[in-house]
């Protein structure tokens, strides 16, 4: 147990460092990072003449100057309104709602994106467009509704009110440029998002991955449950024998130590958490199967953490609340310090659950993508074959190593989420005897 914890800690630390470094780059001007990598600096905002910013286009030429591993990483970990299997782009249902436009429901193939491309649509539909797999909305109400062929897209840098650099997509149509909005997010502008003109309730890549995984898990576990009934009194067989040790491990190492005889009540929830997270972690790691970064999306870990929070606090016994608000056996002046700390702890616990899983999985995905990008960095985006070969060799070794670690992280993070949630519930339902 101790070794396991230590190992998790080391991995967490490594992942955090990897993530932190990457995040640092994104925090300063992302273009310095590119300049560093490419060894030339005519990439600065001012001295950018004749760049792609000024051309309306669907196909951006990748050059050693504009290649950015960070961009590629951010694009690949992002949710999308297309499902990509390798270079193949499959359309997904788009469900969009805007205050002025109401509800829109259509297949994202309406945007007419290239099947072997990057998910940039040639059409606008009801003022929605698709840019790099993500749906955006033209803010100008004078833009025609219905399906309209557009002339191209433009990415412009803008400075927001709080002084942050922001990239905005413009649509070129009929000789004019139309500004677009990204979908609404609930960060309140903290991470550059916020409420915009529309909400995206689409069956996105992440939602599709969740549906696939849930169906798969349902079939597998129904099959196993049936096998237990059919083969009653017989030794486990096949997939049943594969899952049983995992199931027993969670039951005996996670549930029973914290919950004791109350294990049965919380077993379905903890098992669901563990297998849901594990399956999605692993599913996101399979190369050329979409690589959906589901558990690396804050929205997903937020939902799981909120549910853990609700289950914990709704099953909280009298003792649990007493320990938070009026810790027995402690002098009154200590209580004035302890109570705020304990009260904050109620919220900090699920927040750490949310951030830990999100950061670990996202970091893993980013590192793998950065390692793969080494091929292009050393190969100078196809202009230096020798460098590309060297990069490919180095990248293969590093990616292989990273994927092995990620495989471990997939299990560890699912286990950590499950065991911490169980321990919180365990503390909530525990009855103390003073």
């Amino acid at each position, binding site marked *: 147990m101790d070794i396991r914890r230590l190992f998790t800690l080391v991995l967490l630390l490594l992942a955090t460092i990897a993530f932190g470094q990457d995040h640092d780059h994104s925090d300063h001007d992302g273009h310095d990072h590119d300049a560093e990598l490419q060894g030339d600096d005519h990439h600065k905002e001012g001295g950018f003449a004749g760049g792609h910013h000024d051309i309306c286009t669907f196909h951006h030429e990748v050059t050693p100057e504009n290649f950015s591993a960070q961009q*590629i990483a951010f694009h690949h970990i*992002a949710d999308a309104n297309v499902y990509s299997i390798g270079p193949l782009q499959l359309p997904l249902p788009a469900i969009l709602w805007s205050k002025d436009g109401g509800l829109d429901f259509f297949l994202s193939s309406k945007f007419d994106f290239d099947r072997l491309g990057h998910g940039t649509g040639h059409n606008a539909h009801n003022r929605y467009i698709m840019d790099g797999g*993500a749906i955006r909305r033209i803010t100008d109400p004078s833009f025609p509704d219905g399906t309209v062929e557009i002339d191209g897209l433009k990415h412009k840098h803008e400075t927001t009110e709080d002084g942050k650099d922001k*990239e905005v997509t413009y649509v070129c149509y009929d000789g004019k440029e139309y500004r677009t909005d990204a*979908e609404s997010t609930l960060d309140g502008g903290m991470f550059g998002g916020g409420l915009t003109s529309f909400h995206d309730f689409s069956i996105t890549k992440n939602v599709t991955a969740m549906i696939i995984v849930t169906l798969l898990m349902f079939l597998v*576990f*129904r099959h196993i449950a049936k096998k*237990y009934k059919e083969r009653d009194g017989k030794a486990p067989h096949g997939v049943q024998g594969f899952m049983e040790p995992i199931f027993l491990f969670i039951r005996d190492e996670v549930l029973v130590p914290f919950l004791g005889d109350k294990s049965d009540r919380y077993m379905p929830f903890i*098992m669901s958490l563990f297998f849901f997270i594990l399956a999605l972690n692993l599913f996101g790691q399979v190369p050329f199967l979409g690589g959906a970064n589901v558990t690396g999306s804050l929205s997903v870990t937020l939902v799981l953490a909120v549910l853990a929070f609700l289950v914990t606090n709704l099953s909280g016994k009298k003792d649990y609340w007493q320990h938070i608000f009026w810790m027995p056996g402690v002098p009154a002046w200590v209580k004035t310090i302890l109570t705020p700390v304990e009260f904050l702890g109620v919220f900090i616990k699920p927040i750490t659950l949310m951030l830990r899983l999100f950061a670990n999985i996202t970091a893993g995905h980013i590192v793998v993508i950065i390692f793969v990008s080494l091929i292009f960095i050393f190969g100078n985006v196809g202009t230096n074959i020798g460098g590309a070969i060297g990069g490919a060799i180095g990248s293969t070794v590093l990616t292989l190593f990273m994927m092995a670690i990620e495989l471990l992280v997939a299990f560890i993070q699912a286990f950590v989420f499950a065991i911490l949630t169980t321990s919180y519930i365990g503390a909530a339902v525990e009855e103390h005897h003073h």
Partner: protein
Amino acid sequence: MLYLVDFSVIKPDLGLIFWTTLIFLLFWFLIGKLAFKPIGEALKKRETDIQDALDEAAKARAEMENLNLENERLLAEARAERTKMLKEASDTKTEIINEAKDKAREEAKKMIENAKVEIENQKNAAIVEVKNKVGAMAIEIAEKVLKKELSSDNAQTGYVNQLVDDIKLN
């Protein structure tokens, strides 16, 4: 630019939150109820079964051991019984033999005694008979002699006296 530099995964997206909630709740209720619960129950049942079987085996083993002990005890008892019986039989045999010997000896003694008495009796009878016979013969002879010699009275009287004297002497 190829893509926007947008770290979108950190932005909570209402659509994704909605779908995740829905899908996870479905996962929880469907798989939890239809799969995890029965699997957990089956595993628990199997564990109880295994424990029961082990307990049963332990019990059977203990019983077997008891039975063995009992058997051994019985065997030992039987052996002791046999030895005792053999000893008793041998004792009885010796006793019977001795008794028989004693009886035989006694019988023999009695028979010898009887024989002795008989012999004595026979002897006595024989002696009496011989005496009688001899007496008769003597009388006969005496008669005959007397008949011949005692033709005169003198002789007769003398002889009678002589006889009387003899008898007296005897």
